[in-house]
């Protein structure tokens, strides 16, 4: 009893997590008209159709621009805040940390409503700007957690050496700290981009009419019925959000190894 049973159980739990997603990928290559079982053959036709669907291409553009801007702003704010928390002895450190991760502790629906109504009160209507602000605020805590975890591992000696050799704090930051930080910055941006790219809960509240991100586009398409096109779109999304980060991870590891070695 015991170990073999737990092993089988774990395999089943992993199957539960991945089988449905694997079926999405499988069905996206389905040649049959209705995108369901039985599969009649392998085909790329749904991907070709995706590439000709203007609404989906627009959604991709929106999602990518939104994700990139979110990553840029959120990581800038996050890296600065993380530096303060890791490198300095700030009074009220625990309180500040709690404040900074507060956007995770508040349910996203509530955050979405509050931001929408407040900015509307300030006469800022549903817009790309509102969408961007929303995405920045709920990705920021994740960026701070990731960047902080990486920062702790970077030794301070190099910066102190630069400072004692006469470099100004700003020079030290750009020439010593930032290159050492690069993997942390990179990880933070990737994380922010992925979270932004995947978000639907807040996005449905904030997006102006006619603007769709990829998840809200999928959501709108699901209203009709599930089609092989949605499965194909899902497959593309999985490749983007799993394939690219894995690639990024490999690059980051190489960068870190080159620096370390």
């Amino acid at each position, binding site marked *: 009893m015991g170990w073999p049973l737990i092993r089988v159980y774990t395999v089943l739990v992993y199957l539960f997590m991945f089988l449905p*997603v694997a079926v999405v990928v499988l069905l996206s290559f389905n040649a049959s008209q209705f995108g369901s079982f039985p599969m009649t053959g392998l085909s790329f036709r749904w991907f070709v159709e995706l590439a000709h669907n203007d609404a989906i291409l627009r959604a991709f553009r929106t999602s990518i621009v939104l994700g990139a801007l979110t990553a840029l702003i959120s990581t800038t704010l996050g890296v600065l*805040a993380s530096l303060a928390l890791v490198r300095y002895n*700030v009074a009220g450190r625990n309180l500040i940390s709690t*404040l900074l991760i507060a956007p995770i502790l508040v349910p996203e629906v509530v955050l979405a409503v*509050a*931001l929408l109504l*407040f900015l509307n009160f300030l006469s800022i209507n549903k817009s790309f700007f509102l969408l961007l602000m929303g995405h920045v605020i709920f990705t920021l805590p994740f960026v701070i957690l990731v960047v902080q975890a990486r920062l702790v591992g970077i030794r301070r000696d190099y910066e102190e050496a630069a400072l004692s050799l006469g470099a100004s704090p700003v020079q030290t930051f750009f020439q010593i700290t930032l290159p050492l930080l690069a993997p942390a910055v990179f990880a933070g941006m990737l994380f922010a981009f992925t979270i932004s790219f995947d978000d639907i*809960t807040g996005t449905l509240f904030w997006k102006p009419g006619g603007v769709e991100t990829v998840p809200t586009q999928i959501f709108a398409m*699901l209203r009709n019925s599930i089609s092989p096109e949605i499965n194909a779109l899902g497959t593309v999304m999985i490749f983007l959000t*799993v394939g690219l980060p894995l690639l990024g991870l490999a690059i980051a590891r190489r960068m870190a190894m080159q620096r370390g070695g």
Partner: protein
Amino acid sequence: MSVEARERRQPWILLSPALTAIGLLLFVPLAFIVVYSFWLRTASGADQVGFYLDNWNEALTDPFYRDILFSTLRIAAITTAACAVLGYPAAYFIARSDGNKALLLLLLMLPFWISYIIRTMSWINILGVSGAVNWVLLTLGLTSEPVQMLYNEPTVILGLVHFLLPFMVLNVYVALEGIDVSLEDAACSLGSTRWQAFREVTLPLSLPGLAAGGLLCFVLSAGTYITPLILGGPTDAMYANLVFEAIITQLNWPLGSALSLMLLAVLGTLVLIYNHYLGMGQLMKGLG
């Protein structure tokens, strides 16, 4: 300026952009909807500024809202329990396996990178009228007509468990990883069985991880409105669906504010209780 004074000021300069953003985009808006929830949306669509208790009265006493609040909490509780039952043994296996731990961990992280909406809608391919299960049933001749298995409360829970399970496994794993394996060995050498050793030593020590995972599963499932929209039927609305309806469909923003704050109060109380007994440390370990 002295070196010490500059040293004291620098962290605040670094912190100010992030704190300003969170203040202006989270705390001020939250304070604003508290005020807003006491205003009234008139029939003409304009807001009447003032101090009216109507929205709160409706949110607190209307049986429709109350029932949905209770069913939301029930769904969240069942989801959390299911995640614990499915997740704990898997986390234990990952923590204690020696061979392919790195691969198991990488696989465990993958769902976090796969879009929530795709993971949710993937169940339509499995359980839908033309899904995998129906195809198997039809092929085996177990049914002559496709069976509709979707769009009910169990499928909403299924979707939520599928979405939240990795959070549970990860949190329990982090806790188990921090427990010295030799403790269990010591218990065994003192005469307890492996099961006793697990129950008396490992399980109690891993409870903070289980609690952290449980809190995440509960709060995230109780705050969702997308899963019921995709996998639920017309009567499977959860509390956040009410908020979405009030804000986006009915455009009754003062009522929507009150409903949001109700949800925040209920879930915030849970977070505070958790924080009082266990602190945020374990939760941060699991998230970082």
